[in-house]
Each structure stands twice: as C-alpha cells, then as structure tokens.
C-alpha cells in the first residue's frame, strides 16, 4: 500500500496568512489583459505555473490511482508561450503557440505546439503521455471463499449458510452454497492490473495552406509499454507478468486540390505499422511473489527438491466442483510445501511478435459548384496484414484434470483485413425553405485468418513414489523411451490423455457488407420554426465461419500406450492411424467438408424526425426522434426496435444567465422469444450559468441517469453439499443439491430453443438453468462552482462534483460483492489565487476525493477483500508568472 505525506496544517496556515496579509496582495492587473512584450518582430506572451502538490489519501490507494493518480511532488502545472509576428512577416514563422501541462510526475502530460507562416506552412505537434495505472480489485477477481464462519457462529469449518439461516430448521436449508477454503487467501488485487505508460505523438505539416493545391504530411507514433498481468486457462489461474510493448508508427501524406470554384478534391495515403512485443512470463526470477511454495522431493529423481511452485490465485480448496489449487495444497505440518498433485506452475512463458502493416488510400471531394446543390463524398481502400511468425507458449506445470505436466504451443498465424468504403451526400435547396438531403454509405470489410497450430502436450515420468509436479517432464525419444515403452522415463499417459502432438490448421473468416441510405427533407416554416423528416434504410450482411482441422495427431506410447484417443481400437479406421517406427501412432484426419459460411442479413428501417423551435429570441428548443425497426439481429443484445428521444432547451433570459435542460431517452428492444432483451438509457439534465458580473459567477447542474438491461440467459449452476460439514454433519445437509443461485428466479433450461453446453436435441440435453438477467443503475450527479473576486487581485473558487450510483442485478455467485453497483464519489474543491506582484500570482487549491461503496460490500462467505474505498485530499501551492 502506498502512502502519501499529509498536509502540514501550521505551515499551510502561515503561508495562507502571509499571502493574504502581504502588501503585495494589493497590486497588479488582470492577467487575461496582459499585453505581452514586444521582442524584435514578435509580440510574446508567456506564462508558467509551477508548484507543489501534497497528496494525503487514506484507504485503497490502488483504487485512487486507478481513478485519479495524482501524487505529491513538484509539478509544472502549466506553461504557455505565444509569439505573434507584429507585421505578419516573421523570419521563420508568423505565429507560434506552445503549451504544456502535467510534467513532473502527473499521470497526464500534454504538449501542443503550433507553428505557422501564413502562406507557407502550418505545423502542429501534439505529444501526450499518460500513465495508465489500473487496479480496481473487484474486477477479474476469483472471489476466493473464506475458511471459517464469522465470529459468533456456532459452527466451524466450511461456510454453509449465514448464521441466521443456520438456526432454521432444517439447518442450512435454504441457504448459501457451501464455499470454503483452507487456507483462505483473499485476492486484494485485480488479476488484470496494469501500470502502463503510453506516449502518443502526432506531427502534421500543411504546406501552402492558402493555395489551390496544398500538401499535407503527417506522422504519428503510439508507444504503450509497462508491466501488467496476464491470466489464461490452465490447471489453475495465476497472474503472470506481462511486459506490454506496443508500437504504432503511422505516416500520412495528402494533397488538396481546389481545381474548380468551391470544389475540393483530396487524396490521402496512410501507412501504418503496428508491432507488438509483449512477453508473458512466470518464473521465480520474474514473479517472485507468485512462487511462495516449494516442492519437496528428496528422491533425487524427477523435479529437484525445493523447486519453487506457483499455486495460482484461485484458492477454493473444498469446493464441490473442482478444488483449486487442490483439496489440500499445503503439506501437513508445513507452511510452504506444496502438495505435488496440486494444480500449479513451475514456469510459464509466452512470446509472440505480431507485425501489422496497414496501408490505406482515400479520395475525397466536396463541392458547392452548382447553385443550390452541394455534395461531398469519399472512397477509401484499406488493407491490413497481421503476421505473427513465431508465437510460442511454454507451460511447465501440472494440470490435475488432464494429467499433463506441461505443453508447448506455437505456429505461424496470419490475419488480413480488407476494407472498401465509400459515401456520397448531396443536398439540394429546392427553395429557400425546403432542402432535400440524401446520404449513401457503403462499407465492406472482410477479415480472413489462418493459424497453423503446432502443439505438444507433455506428460510426466513414472518414477516410483513421485506424483504430479514431482515427476519431471518426460521427453519421448528412443533413448528415454525404448520399446516396449515401459521405462519410468516414458511419458505416463492415461487412457483419456490427449494426443502428444497436434498439428492443426485453423481457418477463419469474418466480414460485413453494409449499405445505408438516408433521405431527409428539411423545411424552414419561418425564422422561428424548422423541422426535418427522414427515412433511413440500412442493409448489412455479416458472414463468418471458423474451421479448425486437427489435421494430424500423434500419440506417443508410455503408460497406457499410444492406442488411445482417435487411435483407440474401433474408433477410427486403419487408414486414419499409422503406427510409426518409434511406437507412436499418427492419426490423420480425413478431409473435412467445406465449412458452411454463416450469413446474417439485417434490414433496418428508421423514421427520423426533428425540429428546432425558437419561440422567443432567448429560447431555443431542439428535438430529435428516431423510431427504428430491424428484421434481424446479430447478437442477442442488438436491438430490433429502437426508439430515441432527444430534447434540448437553451434559455438566455438575461445576458448574464444561461439555462440549459436536456432529456435523452434511448429504448432498445430485442424482445423475441428466449431473448426478451429490453434496454433503456435515460438521462435528464439541467444546468445553469449565472454571471452576475466579472467578479461573481455561479455554475451548477444536475443529471439523473437511469440505465436498465434485461435478457434471458442460460447458465449452469449446481452445488452439492457432499462435504461433511459442519461436523458431525446433520443428515439434512449431506448430499443436498442447490440448483439455483439464491434470490434468482430460474426456469429449467433449455428454455424453448435454448440450452447450455449442448443443443436441445443432444443426448443428454443441456442441463442448465434459465433466468431473466437484469441490471439497473441510477446515477444522481450534481455539480456546482462559485467564482468570487472579493477584490481586484483575489479570486476565490469553491465547487463540488458528486456521483451517487445505486443499482441492482442478479447474482449468479453469492460471493460477488455489489461493487460498482452502489457507491458515492464526491469531490469538493476550493481554490484561491492572489496576485502578489505585477504578473505574479500565488495560487492555492484543495481537492477532496471521497469514494465509498455501499450495498453488500462483503458478502457472507467471501474471504474479505480489501475495500476499494478511499478518501483524502490534495493541496497544491503554486506560483503563476505571466506576461
């Protein structure tokens, strides 16, 4: 846990008092009216704000850094430089603008530079560096269960039910399912935590910006790197270290022709190169924190004694389904000796280097050449070629459910994206009041992919007295495993063991062809009322297939031998399996039928309505409505029916008062049988800006945001109290099966047309449950700010912003905290700026951050996770010098 120094109250008070009482506080002028200085041919404005931030945050600093990440230290809060040629004829440039903020340790640093010489060039530079620290610990958290009942409970051992339920008769029924772990290991960090730094650079140069032919050149670079975490399916799940490294270099060149009056034709060429050099690793050197256990093996054979073991991050040792890392992870009488039959890792690595080359060409035009008719359009062609020649994943560990001791996976992969798009828009003014607008859009892309898989599954040796991780990885060759393949150094297969080598070919395709046209009439009834009505038609076809051929499987002998799987007796013909000289068997898959391409065609029709009304000069009301219907949907949450209502009113009753109100309502429905998807997103907003005079202004607003989603889902859920708990187990507890999550109304699944894990016609059919998944969230957001200049050289501000979120959803796993469903996030602030001398201002500000989750933050049975809550304040002290 990080710690931040506090604000020292007494020195702070002295500084404030000194500043307020200083005679210098009665000087100066308004910085916004600074004239700058004339230096040579240029008028120069410059400002710099430099100071110190003191951060004093309590609670979960990882959450704070995820949200804010403003720490203590010296900072360059702002620096600007503006130079303007007085006679518009500077030597190298006529105007220069340079601004910066955030340097010195803040998470967001931005530099903007613009240099231009009016007729000749316009150069812009944008540099952005952002630190992306992310560790909200309720995301990607395995929710490990607790070990013991809470204090006050009459039982010990695994948790069966809340104490209140335990008193019921029969005890434990109904109650929460049995979760427990020995030991209990709460997971206080997200397994997908990140600490990345991204640097984005954009350079754009326009040559001869005022001429009929102007040229544009540009370059962008995006570099993202830093440590993060990676999880993947294995015997268990561990947070492997991932060293992120992404780089994109993008070049662009373009030219604009103004060959006809009021007509521009542009051509652009883009060349982008993306490369990824991420490395995932898990070993005692790279991830010492993961390897808290050692393997005991004094036999001198197999895996060496005291080899460090990573038992992963899921600790649910006595769960009914699959205990992880195993039922008894730690050897009796020890604190860090791993059970060798546990799921675990001795090492892991994954390396792949995707290289993606993405050229794009684009031709655009815009014309007002014809009277009363304007049009614009573009045509573009883009292709991406993503090549990954050398992917390699190496796993050294033990997976209990498959008996595998490791694996390697590699092979070249290649994916392409080809995109063609075009659009045309035209608007014809029939009269001064009536306008017809038509817009057509064509967007066609396809992504074919291929991966040549080369996978090796590694099994353990068969040394007597050793098990699981203690057995070293067996290497199959004639020296280690000679006929009759019964040596202990042979790989030890079970009858159900997978093939030792898999050479496959995966071929995939995804594409979409979209055509859309919008026809709209716009009419001005008078200067106060105008309206538009339109019709949108969109047709899109989505095509996809995925075909994976395990074209060749090789089964090594050892253990139960090579005649297993596809080469087990009676399962394949002799033509498909070949016995090799080394005792292995090769299964060659028969030629697969051509994959059937799945096609989804969607026709969308929508009515568009809108109006702008100005009943009085000071009031403007705009409204936009959309009513859409689609005859199909691609996903279950794609709407077939869309309704959208947007109304915004802007009222300026006085020159010093601006009032705004807005209503936005979006209703989406895919309410066909078995889906029943309903969504709404509704917001109601109000804002006001009152500027009584230059010395006092008030800004406040409120927003209510209401989100709701529902859909039918199917899932598997079963809990059986097979474990004898509590001891002695009451007869009514042993063997009780809970078939639905507490508090969730379920139906049998398959619901009509749906199933879990197997199609409805399968034998046996799917055995899951069906339920209506619901999620609702409401947010009350309020903000206010008051600016007051009690005297000419003093500016004070106080403000507040707060979000109050409340929500509800179903819980499939009762160990899930309510988390982001219920919280308050409040951020009041205050600042004071005092002009000490001419051009010099002293500034102080105070920002408070209070994040607190409410609701069920610590569900019964969950190994207590550190609360994400935090609160505290930042104080900044700075000097602003400007001229």
């Amino acid at each position: 846990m990080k710690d931040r120094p506090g604000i020292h109250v007494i020195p702070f008070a002295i500084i404030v008092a000194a500043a307020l009482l200083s005679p210098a506080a009665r000087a100066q002028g308004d910085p916004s009216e600074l004239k700058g200085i004339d230096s040579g041919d240029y008028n120069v404005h410059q400002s710099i704000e430099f100071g110190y931030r003191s951060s004093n945050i309590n609670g979960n600093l990882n959450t704070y850094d995820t949200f804010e990440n403003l720490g203590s230290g010296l900072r360059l809060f702002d620096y600007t430089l503006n130079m303007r040629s007085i006679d518009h004829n500077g030597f190298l440039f006529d105007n220069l603008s340079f601004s910066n903020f955030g340097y010195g340790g803040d998470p967001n640093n931005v530099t903007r530079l613009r240099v231009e010489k009016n007729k000749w060039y316009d150069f812009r530079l944008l540099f952005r560096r952002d630190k992306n620290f992310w560790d909200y610990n309720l995301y990607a958290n395995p929710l490990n269960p607790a070990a013991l009942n809470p204090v006050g409970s009459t039982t010990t051992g695994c948790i069966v039910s809340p104490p209140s339920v335990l008193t019921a008769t029969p005890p434990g029924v109904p109650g929460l399912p049995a979760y427990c772990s020995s030991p209990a290991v709460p997971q206080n960090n997200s397994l997908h935590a990140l600490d990345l730094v991204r640097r984005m650079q954009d350079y754009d140069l326009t040559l001869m910006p005022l001429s009929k032919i102007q040229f544009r050149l540009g370059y962008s670079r995006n570099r993202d790197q830093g440590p993060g975490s990676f999880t993947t399916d294995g015997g268990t799940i561990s947070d492997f270290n991932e060293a992120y490294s992404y780089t994109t270099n993008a070049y662009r060149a373009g030219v604009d022709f103004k060959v006809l009056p009021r007509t521009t034709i542009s051509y652009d060429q883009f060349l982008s190169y993306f490369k990824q050099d991420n490395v995932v690793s898990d070993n005692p050197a790279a991830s010492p924190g993961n390897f808290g256990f050692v393997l005991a093996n004094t036999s001198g054979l197999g895996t060496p004694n005291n080899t460090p073991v990573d038992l992963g991050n899921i600790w649910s040792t006595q769960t009914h389904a699959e205990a992880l890392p195993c039922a008894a992870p730690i050897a009796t009488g020890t604190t860090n000796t791993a059970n060798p039959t546990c799921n675990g890792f001795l090492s892991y690595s994954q390396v792949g280097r995707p290289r993606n080359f993405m050229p794009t060409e684009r031709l655009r035009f815009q014309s007002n050449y014809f009277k009363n008719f304007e049009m614009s359009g573009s045509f573009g062609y883009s292709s991406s070629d993503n090549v990954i020649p050398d992917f390699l994943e190496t796993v050294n560990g033990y997976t209990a459910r498959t008996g595998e001791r490791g694996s390697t996976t590699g092979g070249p992969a290649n994916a392409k994206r080809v995109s063609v798009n075009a659009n045309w828009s035209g608007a014809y003014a029939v009269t001064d009041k009536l306008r017809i607008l038509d817009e057509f859009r064509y967007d066609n892309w396809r992504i074919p992919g291929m991966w040549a898989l080369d996978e090796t599954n590694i099994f353990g040796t068969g040394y007597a007295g050793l098990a699981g991780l203690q057995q070293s990885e067996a290497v199959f060759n004639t020296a280690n495993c000679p006929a009759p393949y019964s040596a202990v150094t042979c790989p030890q297969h079970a009858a159900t063991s997978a093939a030792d080598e898999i050479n496959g070919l995966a071929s995939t395709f995804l594409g979409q062809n979209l055509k859309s046209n919008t026809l709209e009439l716009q009419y001005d009834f008078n200067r106060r009322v105008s309206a538009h009505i339109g019709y949108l038609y969109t047709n899109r076809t989505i095509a996809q297939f995925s075909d994976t051929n395990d074209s060749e499987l090789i089964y090594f002998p050892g253990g139960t031998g090579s005649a297993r799987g596809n080469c087990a007796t009676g399962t394949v013909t002799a033509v498909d399996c070949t016995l090799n000289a080394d005792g292995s068997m090769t299964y060659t898959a028969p030629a697969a039928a051509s994959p059937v391409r799945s096609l989804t065609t969607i026709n969308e029709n929508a009515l568009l309505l809108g109006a702008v009304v100005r009943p009085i000069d000071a009031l403007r009301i705009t409204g936009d409505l959309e009513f859409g219907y689609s005859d199909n949907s691609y996903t279950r949450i794609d709407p077939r029916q869309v309704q959208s209502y947007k109304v915004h009113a802007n009222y300026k009753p006085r020159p010093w008062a601006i009032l705004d109100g807005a209503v936005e309502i979006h209703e989406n429905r895919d309410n066909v049988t078995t889906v029943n998807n309903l969504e709404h997103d509704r917001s109601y907003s109000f804002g006001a800006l009152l500027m009584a005079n230059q010395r006092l202004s008030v800004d406040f607003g409120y927003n209510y945001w209401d989100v709701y989603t529902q859909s039918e889902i199917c899932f598997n859920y079963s809990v059986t109290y097979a474990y004898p708990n509590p001891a002695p187990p009451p007869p009514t507890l042993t063997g009780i099966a809970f078939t639905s999550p507490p508090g969730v109304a379920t139906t049998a699944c398959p619901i009509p047309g749906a199933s879990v894990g197997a199609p409805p016609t399968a034998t046996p059919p799917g055995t899951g449950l069906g339920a209506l998944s619901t999620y609702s969230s409401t947010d009350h957001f309020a903000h206010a700010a008051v600016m007051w200049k009690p005297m000419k050289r003093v500016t004070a501000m106080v403000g507040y912003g707060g979000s109050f979120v409340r929500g509800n959803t179903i819980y499939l796993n009762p160990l899930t905290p309510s988390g982001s469903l219920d919280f308050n996030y409040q951020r009041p602030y205050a600042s004071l700026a005092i002009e000490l001398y001419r051009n010099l201002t002293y500034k102080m500000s105070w920002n408070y951050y209070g994040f607190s989750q409410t609701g069920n933050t610590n569900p019964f049975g969950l190994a207590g996770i550190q609360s994400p809550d935090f609160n505290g304040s930042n104080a900044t002290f700075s000097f602003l010098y400007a001229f």
Partner: protein
Amino acid sequence: MPSSTVTRVSVLLIAFGVLSSLGIAQPQEKAATASKPVPPVQEKSLPGKTDTTPSDYAGAEACKTCHADIYNGWEKSPHWKQTYKEGGLAKHGCEDCHGPAASHAADPSDTSKLFLFEKASAKEIDNRCLSCHAGGTQHMNAINSEHARNEVSCVSCHSPHHGKESDFLLVKSQPELCYSCHLAQKAQFDMPFHHRVNEGLIQCSDCHNPHGTVKPKQVRTSSTQDAICFKCHTDKQGPFVFEHAPVKVDGCQSCHLTHGGPNPHMLKLSNVNLLCLQCHTTSSFSSAPGAPSFHNQASLFQSCVLCHSQIHGSNFDATLFK
C-alpha cells in the same frame, strides 16, 4: 510492400498526376478573372446581395476608425490570413464576412447591406463561414453535420473576435464548450471510470468531428477506416485470426460505455459474467455459442475474462485464451 499495394499506389499516383494537371490548368482561369472585380465573398453566401460593386466596399481601415477593438482582435487572429488573397487588406478585411460597408461607413445607422451575425439564422451563418471553410479536412462532411441540422451554427462554438482559445477561436476550451449543451455527457465523464477528457489528455473532438462525419453521432474513423477507438487502443485493432465478432461488427459500444460509467473498464454491466451470458446463451436468435456445461457459475467461473483474457480477439486460440 505487397504488390497489390504497389499497384494501388501507382493507380492513385496517376490520378494524382491528372488532378495536378487540372490544378496547373487553373491559373488560366485565374488570369482570366484577375482583371475582374473580386467579389469579397461567394455569391451563395450573400443571398440577395449579388449585385455588389467595388464601390460598395469601404475597406477595413474605414471599419477600424469606429471598431478599433474588434479590428485589433481580428488583426491578431487567423482570419487575417484572408488578406493574403488577391486584393489584400482592402478587399479581404472585415467586409469579407460582414459584406459591403460603404453605406454603413457613410451613415453608421445604415446596416442594410451588412451581414450581421447576431441577426442571421444558423443556416445563413454556416453558409457564410463555409464559403471559405468548406472542403477543409475538418469540414469535408459539413453537409452531414448534426449540429447544422439542429441549428447550432459556427458562432455557437467559434468567436472570430472574442475567442478564448487561440486555436480555432473557440468561445470556451474543450470539454466545457461541449458540456454547455451535452449535459449528460458531463455526468458520464465524471464517473470513476471514464476517458480522460476532463483531465485534458483527450478532447471531445479527438473522437467526434463537430462539423460532421458520415457516421452516427459524428464519430470519426481511424486512418485505417476502422473505429476511432483504435487510434489509441492499438492492441485491440487486430485483425485477429479469431475475432470476437461483435467488436468489429457492432463496435466497442456493444460492451462498453464510450464516455464513462460506473463499472470497471466502462463496461455496460457490473458483472462480467452477466455481460457475456447476455449473448453467450444458445438460442435460435444468436450466432454466439452458449457457455459450455462445465461453466458452473456456482464455483470457479467468477469472471469469464480470467480465462478468456484476450476478449477482444486472439491469434492463437478460438476461445480467446491467449
């Protein structure tokens, strides 16, 4: 470079040459028009005032005598570049936008021939500004502008004389300028999980083109004609051998709130599993495979992304494990 790209570049270079030739031919027209009086503004932008003559114009220096403050502000602004056009300051000063002012100079109460922005409709203002700005890289699709459709004119956001921002002469800096109408979005960006707009790292105009695009909500596209999200989130762009199809077909907003929200990673639901199961429930109306039978939600499968960590797409695993 792939041969197909070479071919494409060659074709487009030829097109470039043809267009260049057209551009070279243009000076003849320019020479032909040089001797004619240069109309200060496009005809289209002066409805009903096409019969102007050079004598109707007073020149910027005349305006300065009464409107010195405005003149001085304009003189320091990017609009001063107009004076580099033929005719210089005399013909491309204040009257470039405000119309002929000779009669106003003679009689200050006579504003009949002036274009007064505060009295003009949004469409008239837009036409006036676009007479010069149309066709620029940012205004190519002004015809599709939702702002224009709702009569939010250029001067709603830009102030040629009193811009607070030297860049683009905005009346306020972003995002406060946008928040003044888009009130709900202000609340979304104040959520704990949000894009860093309030922090100044990115701006509304990085993702939206306020002057119009061909996409809904005036969203920009990346240079590769893909979602603008991939400009920053380069690792999610692919193409991948195994795509998570909705990412490309429906867009990032299938699962994420694009501005900000209460849930981690701006997800639309608080629970990842429920988000996945919304689609991954086998039914007659879904192309997504259902969750397999061993995914017992009561036990080890608390978060789908623990195993399916490459949720945006993978090159090596159809189940998006790695």
